[in-house]
């Protein structure tokens, strides 16, 4: 992706012929974490606050507020705090967490230690789905134990274990990751208690996406002003994106505030763009042309950056035809625990499929909108809400296609541009 305006902070510079930064390379490129931050003498949470570091797993929750919540949980309820790094990337269209762990695992581990120091944890779990990413993380832990210059890593000991999870969509949900860390099946759990107060086995738990932790590790080295040198005033820094263009898919790192068109490059005018992945929103090509990749930029068009997935369909593809199998996949990915999700998503998937194939009536679209309103907010996790966002935005962004499809199919064939199998995201695009 030569046209894309790379800002390589987390991932190795595409100009360097380095695939994976082992510990020596990592220390050469980034240097050690400043010792005052490693020891906790300087509070990394304050730095995170100053650069408005937000979670990169999809929800975008401020890291500092989360960390402070765990401190409060620890002080009020007791229990040994725990840090869980979430690298369970169940969304088939997202590959950025796996790429990060595969290529720059030590940044994630540095961030994990910093987060552990910040909340007073002596123990951490790194939850990973992708097998190559898992091998890289395990190798990185081994490299650290073997390292001949341990002073560069010295700090409080944080016992870290890698936990394997299946690449299922809902396995990435924070409560599911907490369950996986406790050796239980990775499905979302119902709770009225916050994870910060009672997560893994009732312990105060900080769950943070692996990219968020890597950002923390970069912030520790660059300091506030260095970190702010790219990005926007409100949202400084970079973001990882998984970008799918007709014919190719890539993980890239760009400054927050980059124009969506710069990321899409010279691929011609896109017909439709999905931003934020399968819990994200659709944009018609003309809206996409003026959209900026930041929380504020996507808020302006009604959506979020989510976990950083961008998919551009070519003009020749029908967004309804491409999206219908995804809605079916998302319905099937329900953990099957909550009635409104099980029944509602199945009904929604059937209606979208009928619409795509031109067999839906006018009443079906009204029903679809009503069901979308019914399932949101009625589950143990936000999966139904995410699917509703995907479907509602689809109906909203392409009114002409929706009107046409109520009478007959558009005749455009499915390109299969939206992956519905784990690991389908890179390389083998149709």
């Amino acid at each position, binding site marked *: 992706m030569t046209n894309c305006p790379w800002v390589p902070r987390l991932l190795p510079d595409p100009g360097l012929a380095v695939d994976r930064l082992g510990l020596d390379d990592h220390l050469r490129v980034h240097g050690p974490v400043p010792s005052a931050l490693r020891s906790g003498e300087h509070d990394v949470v304050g730095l995170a606050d100053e650069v408005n570091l937000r979670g990169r797993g999809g929800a975008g929750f401020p890291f500092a507020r989360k960390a402070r919540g765990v401190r409060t949980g620890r002080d009020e309820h007791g229990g040994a705090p725990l840090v869980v790094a979430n690298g369970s990337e169940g969304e088939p269209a997202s590959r950025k967490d796996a790429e990060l762990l595969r290529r720059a695992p030590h940044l994630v581990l540095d961030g994990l230690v910093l987060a552990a120091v910040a909340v007073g944890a002596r123990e951490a779990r790194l939850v990973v789905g992708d097998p190559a990413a898992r091998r890289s993380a395990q190798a990185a832990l081994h490299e650290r134990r073997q390292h001949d210059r341990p002073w560069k890593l010295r700090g409080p000991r944080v016992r870290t274990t890698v936990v394997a999870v299946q690449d299922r969509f809902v396995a990435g949900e924070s409560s599911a990751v907490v369950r996986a860390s406790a050796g239980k099946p990775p499905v*979302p759990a*119902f709770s009225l208690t916050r994870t910060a107060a009672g997560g893994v086995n009732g312990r105060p738990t900080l769950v943070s996406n692996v990219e968020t932790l890597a950002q923390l590790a970069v912030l520790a080295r660059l300091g506030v002003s260095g970190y702010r040198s790219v990005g926007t005033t409100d949202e400084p820094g970079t973001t990882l994106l998984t970008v799918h263009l007709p014919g190719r898919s890539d993980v890239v790192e760009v400054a927050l505030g980059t124009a969506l068109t710069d990321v899409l490059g010279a691929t011609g005018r896109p017909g439709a763009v999905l931003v934020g992945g399968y819990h994200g929103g659709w944009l018609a090509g003309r809206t996409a042309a003026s959209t900026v990749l930041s929380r504020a930029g996507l808020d302006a068009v009604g959506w979020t950056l989510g976990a950083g997935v961008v998919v551009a369909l070519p003009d020749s593809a029908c967004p309804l035809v491409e999206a219908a199998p995804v809605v079916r996949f998302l319905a099937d990915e329900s953990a099957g625990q909550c*009635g409104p999700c099980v*029944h509602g998503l199945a009904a929604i998937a059937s209606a979208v499929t009928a619409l795509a194939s031109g067999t839906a009536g006018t009443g079906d679209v009204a029903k679809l909108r009503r069901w979308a309103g*019914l399932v949101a907010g*009625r*589950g*143990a996790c936000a999966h139904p809400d995410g699917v509703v966002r995907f479907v509602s935005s689809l109906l909203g962004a392409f009114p002409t296609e929706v009107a046409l499809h109520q009478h007959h199919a558009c005749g455009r064939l499915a390109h299969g541009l939206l992956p519905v199998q784990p690991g389908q995201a890179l390389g083998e695009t149709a």
Partner: protein
Amino acid sequence: MSRRLHVDWTRCDAHGLCAELLPELVELDDWGYPVVADGEVPEPLVGHARHAVRACPQLALLLRG
């Protein structure tokens, strides 16, 4: 003290007793699962709400402050 109704969706099995016992605050959706009114439970209905909570065969309905 303000109280709200919560549904543990992982437990609820669409028995529908809550809607029978507390029609003021609970309706059923197309599949028989409760749609609970947002916000605080009004004081005069707290007794009925407690009754509905106790009657739920799945222990899926909760009343919390």
